[in-house]
């Protein structure tokens, strides 16, 4: 664990502080103030990402530090979920934002790196970006699945969907992104390494994530809301696979592979 005494570090810490403050304010029923602080936190997160972009002179999605910096810009996803999907968990999003920025602020190395030849491809940004979006959606879906298991429903009058329906709706948004990320990665693998599928641990774990959500759709189609707790467990299992894909594969020596530059 290290503290970053840099402008970049300062921006990350300010975002974490704003998100935590927004969370506390919201659960103390000062929703409007919480929303404004959340918005300020998002603005700082964008500045932080932009600063990094300017500093490294390429889209900052190369390593775990940069990827978590990107994940910290969660606000548009929460807004979209609330306005377009009628899904709650607004306060939880603030906490998710702070949690994903924590490793960027205290764990991962922020040393700027130049892009190795394999990453100099037009597919670099879309492949990583769609994955990041899908991961944020799936994290939100997991929160709803946990709420469903815990029996927490939105209060009457909030005009929000129940947690089971919310989980399904968010997964419906995240799954096409997950599919697109997998396919763009495969296409890029063909261009860079000669094979669209190299059986690399990261590739296999990303396939596992996709398959778990595919299983979720099939199971839900078969039983509907009859076994809603099992539906939620599928969603949580999918998120577990995503965490392994994103973190464990890159940080553990158990899975050496072609994606090791992402550490």
């Amino acid at each position, binding site marked *: 664990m290290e503290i970053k005494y840099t402008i970049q570090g300062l921006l990350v810490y300010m975002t974490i502080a704003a998100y935590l403050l927004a969370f506390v304010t919201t659960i103390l029923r000062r929703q409007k103030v919480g929303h404004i602080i959340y918005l300020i936190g998002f603005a700082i997160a964008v500045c932080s990402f932009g600063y990094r972009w300017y500093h490294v002179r390429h889209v900052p999605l190369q390593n775990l530090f940069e990827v978590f910096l990107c994940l910290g810009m969660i606000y548009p996803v929460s807004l979209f979920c609330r306005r377009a999907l009628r899904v709650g968990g607004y306060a939880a999003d603030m906490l998710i934002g702070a949690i994903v920025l924590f490793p960027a602020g205290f764990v991962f190395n922020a040393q700027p790196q130049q892009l190795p*030849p394999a990453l100099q491809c037009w597919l670099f940004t879309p492949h990583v970006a769609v994955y990041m979006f899908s991961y944020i959606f799936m994290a939100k879906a997991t929160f709803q699945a946990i709420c469903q298991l815990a029996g927490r429903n939105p209060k009457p009058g909030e005009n929000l969907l129940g947690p089971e329906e919310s989980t399904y709706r968010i997964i419906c948004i995240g799954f*096409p992104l997950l599919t697109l990320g997998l396919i763009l990665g495969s296409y890029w693998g063909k261009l860079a390494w*000669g094979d669209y599928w*190299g059986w690399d*641990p990261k590739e296999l774990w990303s396939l596992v994530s996709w398959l778990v959500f595919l*299983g979720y759709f099939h199971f839900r189609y078969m039983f509907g809301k009859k076994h809603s707790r099992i539906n939620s467990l599928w969603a949580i299992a999918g998120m577990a696979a995503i965490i392994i894909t994103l973190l464990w594969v890159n940080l553990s020596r158990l899975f050496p592979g072609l994606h090791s530059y992402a550490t």
Partner: protein
Amino acid sequence: MWLALVLIIVLTVLSIYGAFIGAERAQQFFNQPTLAVYWTALAVLLIAGIAAFRRLLRVPGLLLMHAGCVLILVGGMWGSQGGHNIQKKLFGIDKIRSGRMAIYENSSENHVALDGIREQKELPFSLKLNDFRIEYYQPVYLQIETADGNVQQVIAEVGRQIDLGAEHGKAEIVRMFENFKMSIQDGKTTAYEDPSPGLNPALAVRITPPSGEATTHHVFSLHPGFGHTQGGPKMIYDRPAYRAISDYISELEVIDREGNIVAKKDIEVNHPLHYGGYHFYQSSYDDKAGQYTVLQVVSDTGLYVVYAGYWMLCLGVIWHLWLRHIFSRFKAKNT
């Protein structure tokens, strides 16, 4: 549906197992005959599902997704080593699935060392390597100062010329060394690139004064000032100790059996050459002397079927989970 769910769970478990055994063993594992039975069963079940469940035929998104998965499986199996073996037996198509070829600069080659077995095969055409080079993020510079105090700095690359003025003539970089060494034989010294581990970056600079008698000087990055001659220009080779590689480039020509050049391409990482049913990738190089490049050769059999499957899967998922809902909302709003 239960069978579909079971096959999804089986593939999930197999993928987790594959992730723990490493890419090379996983590739062998997923390509073994037992797994070929699984892949075939999966493809057959998908086709049977499309035929049996009317909903899959009626709902375009679901049809695209399932048919896309069938194409990915069929294309993948057709392009695998097993698929190539079947094509050879049934249709007499003898194509290399994957292999590697090393080509020296200014020479052509058509032999491919096959992956996984100690065997070589010939391509029906040759590849000629005109040049192999590595590009770096950080440029290196040659700084040159003439006796009258005129200082110039240029990017150091072979062929770069510097005009030193009417009094001093011109300078030209004629060679770059990563690990400079010098041998002496019969009193004659020869500079050469030492392929053994070590670092002694140097430039060979030819200075041609107006009188016409050209002399070659060596400039060393690690030993600035070494080799300066009385009254001659002072030269500094400005090169950082570590330089990040930005690209590997092989300049290739494809030559047919009659000796005609039929294609040209500078291949780089992410920019392979596609010719005659094969893709050629920059794979490795001579890291000691930079005299040859190593290309990976991969057959394109089944590739476009897989890509068609990708398109269908993507369109199907996006249509089914996003677009049809958006369109139906628009319709509901307008009515």
